[in-house]
C-alpha cells in the first residue's frame, strides 16, 4: 500500500513535469495582419468653375467659352480603373458642357466629352498610381437657336470606377 502511494505520487509529479514542458517552451508565435482596402480617390482643386457664352463672330455660332483653371488629383491602388463624369441634370436644349481631362501616366484621355445625365468615360486605362495637377478643361457652347439662357449651376461628378 505504501509503495503504491509513492508510485502514484511519482507518476503525478512526472506527468506534471511533462505537461509543463508541452505548455511552455522557448518559442511563441504572433501574427501581424494588414488589410489593404481598395483605394479610389479623386479630388478637384476648385469646387466651382464659371463659364459664360457671350460673344460670337458675325455669321457664326456663338463662341464657346473655355476654362482650364481646375485640376484634379487621383490615387488608386487598383488596376483597370477609369474616370467617368456625369451631370446632376441635363443641359438646356442647344447648350452643351464638355469636359476634357488630362490623362495621368499610362492612361488615355477621351478628349472633350459632352456631359449628360449619364456617366461618360473621360479617362480610361488607369492603374495603381497617385498623381495630381492634371488639368480639367471645361467648355460651354451654345447654338444660336438656344437663345438667351438664364444663368444656372450644374454639378459635375467625377468618379473613379472599374473599367479599362
Amino acid at each position, binding site marked *: 500500500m505504501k509503495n503504491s502511494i509513492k508510485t502514484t505520487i511519482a507518476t503525478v509529479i512526472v506527468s506534471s513535469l511533462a505537461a509543463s514542458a508541452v505548455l511552455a517552451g522557448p518559442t511563441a508565435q504572433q501574427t*501581424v495582419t494588414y488589410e489593404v482596402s481598395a483605394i479610389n480617390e479623386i479630388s478637384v482643386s476648385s469646387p466651382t468653375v464659371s463659364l459664360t457664352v457671350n460673344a460670337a463672330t458675325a455669321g457664326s455660332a456663338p463662341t464657346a467659352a473655355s476654362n482650364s483653371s481646375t485640376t484634379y488629383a487621383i490615387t488608386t491602388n487598383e488596376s483597370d480603373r477609369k474616370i467617368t463624369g456625369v451631370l446632376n441634370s441635363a443641359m438646356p436644349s442647344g447648350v452643351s458642357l464638355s469636359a476634357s481631362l488630362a490623362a495621368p501616366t499610362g492612361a488615355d484621355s477621351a478628349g472633350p466629352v459632352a456631359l449628360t445625365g449619364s456617366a461618360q468615360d473621360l479617362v480610361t486605362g488607369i492603374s495603381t498610381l497617385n498623381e495630381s495637377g492634371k488639368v480639367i478643361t471645361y467648355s460651354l457652347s451654345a447654338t444660336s437657336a438656344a437663345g438667351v439662357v438664364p444663368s444656372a449651376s450644374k454639378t459635375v461628378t467625377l468618379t473613379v470606377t472599374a473599367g479599362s
Partner: protein
Amino acid sequence: MSFPSRVILLLILLGRFAQGADLISMGDWVETIGASKLVAGAGSDLQPQIESVSGATILTISNAPGSWILRARFSGTGGHPDVSVQVKRTSTGSGAGRIDGGTTYTELTGLDAEICSGTESREGIALQFRLTGLSCHVSPDTYVSSIIFTVQ
C-alpha cells in the same frame, strides 16, 4: 531519504535544467490600410510607414537559467514582398533579470534576427511593430505575417 523519493527529486532537478527558458507571447496586430492612410488625400500615396501601438505584443520570459537571446523570424512568406515588417522593444518589463538592446526597429525575414538579450526572467516586455514600404502599388488584399519568437 528513500529510493523513490530520491528518484523523484532527481527527475525534478533534471527537468528544471533540461527545460531552459520559457517564452509566452500575447497580442497580435491587425491594421486596416485604406484611404484614411493617404499622406494628403487624393493624389498622394500611402504613408510609407505605419506603426502599431506600443505593446501590441507582450512577451514573458521565465525559467531562464542564465543569459538568453530573443530572436524572431517569419513563418512562411511574411506578407506582401514590397512591405517590410519591423519590430522593436518598447519596455524593459519587470523581473529579476536584465534586458538589453532591441530598442530600434529590426526588420523581420525568414531567418532568425536578434531582437534583444538578457538574463533570467523578465515579465511584460512590450513590443511595437512597424510596416514600411507601403504604397498604392500594394494591391488590395489581406496579408498575414506569422512571426516566430524564440528565446535561447
